[in-house]
């Protein structure tokens, strides 16, 4: 049996989708006793338990401190590491996010333990932990041996495990004071990207519509935006499109951009360079539209259309509208 702690993140008043995905899976592992940790300022956390208190999690720890009113890498690390020491957790899990990526490595050092980042598989059965993570941007996969790590720490990629039902039960909520006595670094201000606030981030997106150099300018991306809005997708881009200034770097998919694994990835006018494929090859279904029947992207796609994207994208927008309404 393993005592597992799931670190849950939230935006505004809701637990993040990715955190719920990790939790819902953990609750189904036989051989895991699962608890949850939520961090923040005192008195601000209770309402976040609504979604998860009627689950089979053992405890929900609301860990608070004045200095955790905004995110702090060293503050979060200290709070989690102390909670783990006090309660004897043997594994700490979180969804891959800008927070977990940032502070989990500090937790690992504090607990003299190892960490596996960005796992695409993770499960506990009895005393056995099974974890797999992509390396070389998905060009290969490695199974992780945690046997020499006192605590098995991992972040798990959104959409990789899939959402399970949140097993019902009644979790006990416990308020814990982190007693940090100050932190070294914390967020002073959060500046949202204009127009980007309500969009799902590429790394969390369930559907992605991507465009390449062939879009020719940023205005033309409108045809992909239109398609994306019909199916609830996020727009991505190849590096060539980003380098040409058609899209910001935050939209870049690939080895030096974002690694994504949506259930649907649609590539318009993207040749399929190895660095691009590295970032999206774990997508469940890949569709490619390209004028060149010999484009390498077709070797990695599930469905392909040899066509001009300027005709195909609007036609798809119309076809989706018809099919969905």
């Amino acid at each position, binding site marked *: 049996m393993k005592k597992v702690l799931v670190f849950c993140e939230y935006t505004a008043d809701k637990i993040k989708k990715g955190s719920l995905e990790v939790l819902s899976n953990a609750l189904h592992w036989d051989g895991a006793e699962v608890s949850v940790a939520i961090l923040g300022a005192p008195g601000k956390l209770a309402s976040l338990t609504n979604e998860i208190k009627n689950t089979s999690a053992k405890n929900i720890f609301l860990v608070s401190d004045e200095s955790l009113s905004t995110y702090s*890498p060293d503050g979060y*690390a200290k709070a989690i590491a102390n909670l783990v020491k006090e309660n004897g957790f043997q594994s700490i899990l979180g969804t891959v996010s*800008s927070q977990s*990526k940032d502070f989990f*490595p*500090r937790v*690992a*050092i*504090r607990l003299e*333990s*190892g*960490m*596996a980042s960005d796992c695409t598989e993770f499960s506990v059965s009895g005393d056995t932990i099974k974890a797999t993570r*992509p390396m*070389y*941007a*998905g*060009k*290969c*996969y*490695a*199974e992780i*041996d*945690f046997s*020499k790590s006192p605590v098995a720490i991992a972040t798990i990629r959104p959409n990789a495990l899939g959402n399970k039902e949140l097993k019902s039960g009644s979790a006990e909520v416990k308020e814990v004071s982190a007693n940090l006595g100050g932190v*070294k*670094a914390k*967020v*002073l*201000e*959060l*500046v*949202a990207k204009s127009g*980007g606030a309500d969009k*799902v*981030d590429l*790394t*969390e997106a369930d559907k992605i519509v991507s465009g390449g150099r062939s879009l020719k300018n940023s205005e033309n991306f409108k045809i992909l935006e239109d398609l994306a809005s019909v*199916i609830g997708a996020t727009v991505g881009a190849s590096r060539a499109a980003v380098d040409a200034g058609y899209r910001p770097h*935050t939209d870049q998919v690939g*080895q*030096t951009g974002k*690694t994504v694994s949506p259930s*649907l990835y649609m590539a318009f006018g993207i040749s399929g360079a190895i660095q691009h494929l590295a970032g999206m090859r774990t997508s*469940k279904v*890949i*569709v490619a539209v390209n004028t060149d029947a010999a484009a390498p992207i*077709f*070797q*990695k796609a*599930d*469905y*392909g*259309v*040899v066509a001009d994207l300027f005709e*195909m994208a609007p*036609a798809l927008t119309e*076809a989706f509208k*018809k*099919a969905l309404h």
Partner: protein
Amino acid sequence: MKIFVCVKQVPDTETKIKIASDGKSIDTSGVKWILCPYDEFAVEEAIRFKEKNSSATITVLSAGPDRVVDSLRTALAMGCDDAIHIQSTENADSFITARALAKAIEKEGPAYLVFTGKQAIDDDAAQVHQALAESLDLAAATVVLNAEYGDGVVRLSREIEGGALEKYELKTPCVIAAQKGMNEPRYASLPNIMKAKKKEVKKMNLSDLGIQETDQKISYSKMTLPPERGECKMISGDVTTAATELVRILKDEAKVI
């Protein structure tokens, strides 16, 4: 004023990854090695800092097998002053690497700033920056897009989901992990490349730093290549027909819509 830059040597992004015969590492024969692209931003940032602060000296460090000396020389050619090679193994985990780098920095320090890339593009672990900072008991920020250096303080922006920015103010010494776009890394000039070839690279062993290979916390028990996809189903017909057919397939067969 000592500035440290921690870098890693990684396979070129064009590399086709092959699994070695032991089944748990990659076959490195024929791999072209490069300085990790994110570390180039870290090196450049250190050099720009030095250009504005004449008392600064930059030490570049890398932990890894002997081949990593080439990447140290690339960083020297760009403008770093000294280099340290920590002799370590091919598959050392982030725990050992961070501890080793921290110990070396403690030995050679005190540090005023430590720069790293946001992630190495081989194991993609993205752990050493914060792990190193924790080992040194320093503040750190990762995925940093821009930084302003004041007296004993660094004001910086870190990129998070959706391109939003978190603003921090860190007291020095601190660790800063560069994101692409933080600056435009320079190319080394030929004379500087020649000079860098002659520079001495200081060697350290893990044991000099009080670390043993057996301190490693995680290892790889098996590596596999991703499963090949089935053949691509090509959809033909005029644009409207193809679009309708594709939508039907995505909805009814692939069930992703």
